[in-house]
């Protein structure tokens, strides 16, 4: 899922100061799972902001709403009737949702309440780690299911580099060396022979480098 983290309160408050009516909109999917922008977080943020502004002598109306998703127009449409009663929409969705919100409500200021961080998974409650960088041409078949693009700090495709030590990456002792993990998996799968196959130069044009990307399925398009 997309993993995000709520922005510091001061930064959020700064982005919506001078507004009298704020609608905080949460999202029921990824940001709920990573506890950054779901219904609960919307409630807590709304309460915190109300107190923050009241402490400065301002009474701000802050309402709360959580949509199923903010990356599908049909859900964003649900607030059409109330949207322009507010001065600003504070969206706790990931960067995708914030932008879609802004597109759907063209003349309404939309502020992001979270920093969208990466594509990842829940290691345990409260801990989320990166697993995928959406490079657009997945190599997991040849690396035993461990991604060198997202989990290696140098995205070495023929690794490890010389900085791998005791299974950890040179940048941080708490970061696993992706290539140690790959080697361990290849051993477990009895595929160590694959290790010596030279991975070819990567086509980064399907990655961010190629520009904003698009996927189309002609067979399901209207």
């Amino acid at each position: 899922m997309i993993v995000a983290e709520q922005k510091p309160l001061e930064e959020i408050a700064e982005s919506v100061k001078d507004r009298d009516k704020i609608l905080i909109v949460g999202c029921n999917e990824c940001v709920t799972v990573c506890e950054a922008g779901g219904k609960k977080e919307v409630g807590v943020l709304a309460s915190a902001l109300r107190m923050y502004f009241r402490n400065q002598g301002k009474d701000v109306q802050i309402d709360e709403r959580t949509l199923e998703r903010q990356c599908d127009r049909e859900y964003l449409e649900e607030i059409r009737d109330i949207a322009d009663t507010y001065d600003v929409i504070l969206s706790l969705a990931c960067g995708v949702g914030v932008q879609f919100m802004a597109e759907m409500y063209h003349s309404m200021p939309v502020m992001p309440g979270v920093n969208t961080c990466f594509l990842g998974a829940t290691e345990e409650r409260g801990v989320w780690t990166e697993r995928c960088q959406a490079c657009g041409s997945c190599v997991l078949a040849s690396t035993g299911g461990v991604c060198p693009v997202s989990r290696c700090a140098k995205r070495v495709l023929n690794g490890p580099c010389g900085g791998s030590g005791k299974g950890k990456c040179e940048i941080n002792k708490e970061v696993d060396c992706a290539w140690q993990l790959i080697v361990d998996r290849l051993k477990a799968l009895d595929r160590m022979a694959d290790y010596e196959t030279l991975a070819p130069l990567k086509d980064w044009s399907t990655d961010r480098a190629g520009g904003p990307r698009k996927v189309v399925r002609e067979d399901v398009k209207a």
Partner: protein
Amino acid sequence: MRLDYPTNVKIVRVPCTGKVDILHLLHSFEKGADGVYVVGCMEGECHYNGGNFRAKKRVAQAAKILDAVGVGGQRVRMYNLSSSEGPKFAEYAREMTDLIRELGPSPLKRDKKQQAA
């Protein structure tokens, strides 16, 4: 036991402090409370296993938020005792009241008064 404790303490009963949501704590301050304290079982003796640990975490989280918004995290805290300890209950009530008295009214109310004035 018919012990005395300060009259300004309003009690909200819950079957387990694990039922206390962080929003209950925050909304109390929004609605004019000067202080909120959560009283739960001794750690390790929760009747529902770990409810009081959840409460402890939520109280800590609320304290951080209250610090960030300028209300003050010391206004929310947790106490642990066993259900038979009546005198302790009264003692904590007095202690919390004294603490809040010292801190003064919640700044949220202060500003409202200033606005009215």
